């Protein structure tokens, strides 16, 4: 894993939405727009490994999900974010505030369904949707033979784990000074906090993510999609990628060699290359 210095300085905006969601961007301003949406459990730093593969010739925009990273927790409204719609609105609000057009959105994990919602609501805004480790429904549906990978008993366990790890999580919110001689290239950024998560927010988001069936959204997507699936993803069964491919009209399925739920972290080169290989050009 090596990260080159970004050739263009990262900028942050002064608008209310971009400030609230800690939106940052880099790359040439006239380049095609790639918007990265991170997944459950971390922040936009998750994309650090793939960023250099885009920032030369793309306007790369990243943000922190509300309740994560450097987003403004004081703006967290449990009602607004009681479904993914509030987060999908955030994506559209970022696009509107920065006047992003023809956007390629690359979304990971829980953000994939937010991106799907945003693309359904404003299809004209997006050129392409790239889904990394997407799971439209985590539970089983015996009626249709669908298996999202988790049983009801698993769900109870997951909720319990969130509870029992509460204090650890709360501690994780404090800034951490990272002395990592093995990875000096991260040193600078990591003197700040990493993967700061508000545990209450995480609990709510995980609850939504694990109990809501987003499958009905899939046929409504008209924007071209790319589905990236890694091997042995603990949160996404292998069959799910096929399901997505079958229900997203005209989608492209890319099977990665990378392992696990976060291929953009464990194998940023491969992931970036797979995304680039399927980027549409105007």
């Amino acid at each position, binding site marked *: 894993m090596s990260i080159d210095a970004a050739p263009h300085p990262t900028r942050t905006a002064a608008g209310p939405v971009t400030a609230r969601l800690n939106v940052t961007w880099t790359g040439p301003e006239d380049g095609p727009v790639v918007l990265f949406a991170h997944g459950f459990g*971390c922040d936009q730093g998750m994309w650090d490994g793939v960023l250099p593969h885009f920032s030369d010739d793309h306007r790369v925009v990243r943000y922190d999900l509300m309740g994560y990273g450097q987003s403004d927790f004081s703006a967290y409204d449990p009602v607004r974010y009681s479904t993914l719609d509030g987060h999908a609105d955030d994506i559209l609000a970022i696009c509107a505030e920065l006047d992003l057009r023809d956007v390629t959105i690359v979304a990971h994990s829980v953000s994939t369904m937010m991106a799907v919602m945003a693309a359904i609501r404003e299809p004209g805004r997006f050129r392409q949707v790239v889904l990394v480790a997407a799971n439209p429904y985590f539970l089983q549906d015996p009626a249709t033979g669908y298996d999202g990978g988790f049983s009801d008993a698993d769900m109870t366990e997951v909720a319990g784990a969130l509870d029992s790890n509460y204090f650890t999580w709360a501690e994780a919110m404090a800034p951490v000074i990272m002395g990592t001689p093995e990875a000096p290239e991260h040193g600078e950024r990591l003197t700040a906090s990493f993967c700061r998560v508000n545990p209450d927010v995480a609990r709510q988001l995980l609850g939504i993510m694990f109990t809501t069936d987003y499958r009905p959204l899939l046929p409504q997507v008209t924007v071209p999609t790319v589905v990236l699936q890694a091997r042995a993803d603990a949160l996404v069964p292998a069959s799910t990628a096929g399901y997505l491919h079958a229900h997203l009209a005209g989608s492209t399925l890319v099977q990665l060699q990378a392992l696990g739920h976060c291929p953009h972290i464990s194998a940023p080169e491969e992931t970036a290359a797979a995304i680039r290989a399927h980027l549409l050009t105007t």
Partner: protein
Amino acid sequence: MTPDYADLWEHAPGSHLLLDDDGLITAANATFCEWTGHAAADLLGRPFTSLLPIGDRVLHTTHALPQLMVTGRIAEASVQVIGADGQRHPALMGATRVTAGLPAPETRVVLVDAQQRRRYEEELLTARRRAEESQARIAAAEAALTELVHHDSLTGLLNRPGLLHALHGRLGRWGADATGPGTAVPTVFFIDLDGFKAVNDGLGHSSGDELLRVVARRLEDASRAGADVARLAGDEFVVLDDVSPAGTRRVAARLLDVLAEPVVLQGVEVVVAASIGSCAAEVPVAPADVEGAADLVLLRADTAMYRAKAQGSGRWEAHVPGSPDPAADRLVLLEQLRGAIRDGELRVHYQPRMDLPTGGVSGVEALVRWQHPTRGLLQPDAFIDAAEESGVIRDLGAWVLSEAVEQAVRWDAAGVAPGLQVAVNVSARQLADTDLVARVAGVLARAGLPASRLVLEITETALMHDPESALTTLQALRALGVLLAVDDFGTGYSSFTYLKQFPVDELKIDRSFVAGMTTDAGDRAIVASCVHLAHAMGLVAVAEGVESPDERDALVALGCDQAQGYWFSRPVPADEVPFPAAVGV
């Protein structure tokens, strides 16, 4: 001697694992195997996450792994490790990912048994959850209390505070952007039953209560789900809903319809029609004006209801914007009147009462005036009804009583009219006031005026409003030694049974009969009957409103004892009362 690192690895105080970048276990030390019961050979090549319960697996995958991959390190993640026997071992996990100097990246995991710490954490967590629950319970209890305070126990509808709360909410929430012609706006339908008193009197209170409950259910059923339905008092109901101007008539008609249906009470079919007045709020309302706007829209609907009732039963009238607005005027008036009492704008004028046989002044009636800063001197009919309905009459009446009694003492001191009686009016609301007797006694005692010099005039209508409690109050006043007069006699519906029991001293014959007695034989007969009745009961007969010498002569001929009116003197300020000589003779 070289330290035995191999032995340190195997038997370190903590459990240690090595993982490759695919998360597979490449080495496990003896401490780990002893702690979990797993054989080292079984662990090799197995995904580390398979040792975690599913919840921890999710957290590890979504939180710990990204952090480990990017920062190279995680510290003190709270996990459980599943042992060979299926038992879960609470542990704190730390890990570093090492890349330098190795053919492939390696993750070094240390697990420390955390049984005790986990127990503490669980206790803390339970306490936190319990605190959250108790907060939720307190909130629920408060909500239940509010519910209680805002509802009418008889019908379960909102009561007046509940309705005001709902109305304030609707007005306060109204956005400035929501207006436009045809928009639904908060609209009050003020409903008054027409036949309720007859039911209460004829079939008893329990039937009256039943009727109110039936009406309440019907109003609820006839209203939209989002509407607020309230019972304000007695048989007054309000339906509050967001209604477009065009929809108002429809809503009113539906409400009138459901109330026109007969109700069966104790086997008797009763028809209670209603009168409805409606008023739409003028939105949007500035936050500071919400309460005033709510009062105004209720008053306007109430006023419209009275207009509907005046035209007969079963009718609806809407408040007409831009028309003269008695409701708004009344609010302003009341506010000014409160200020007038405080700022000394009220005056008492005195009208002499003549002794007809002698032509001398036997007493004066105290009459309140309002020296209004812009409208000039106002007569009582301009403000007394509003004062009575709003309760301002209590303060106003108390002030007049005290002023009149003190004036009598001043006249005594000046020696102008020894033994002069001062008559003061007492309204229905004052009569119902439990403080009245004590207040009268206090005023007399402070001023040092003998009770027999004070006459309290109470209208026939006020006495008959609640005759039984009036009787109690009159007896208590009489016990003080105060004289009592029945005012406006002949205009109400006196029950002679009661009248006989009331300890009164005077009957004041209403001016409307006096005015007609020289031209109308009927009026003359009524006045004659009143004089006879008074004398038969041992009361003094007093004629009001005498405006001509003919009227005076006719009264003298009928044997009337006393009289007052413009012919003798208008009500005048205290220093202009014509003492001591008789006037007009």
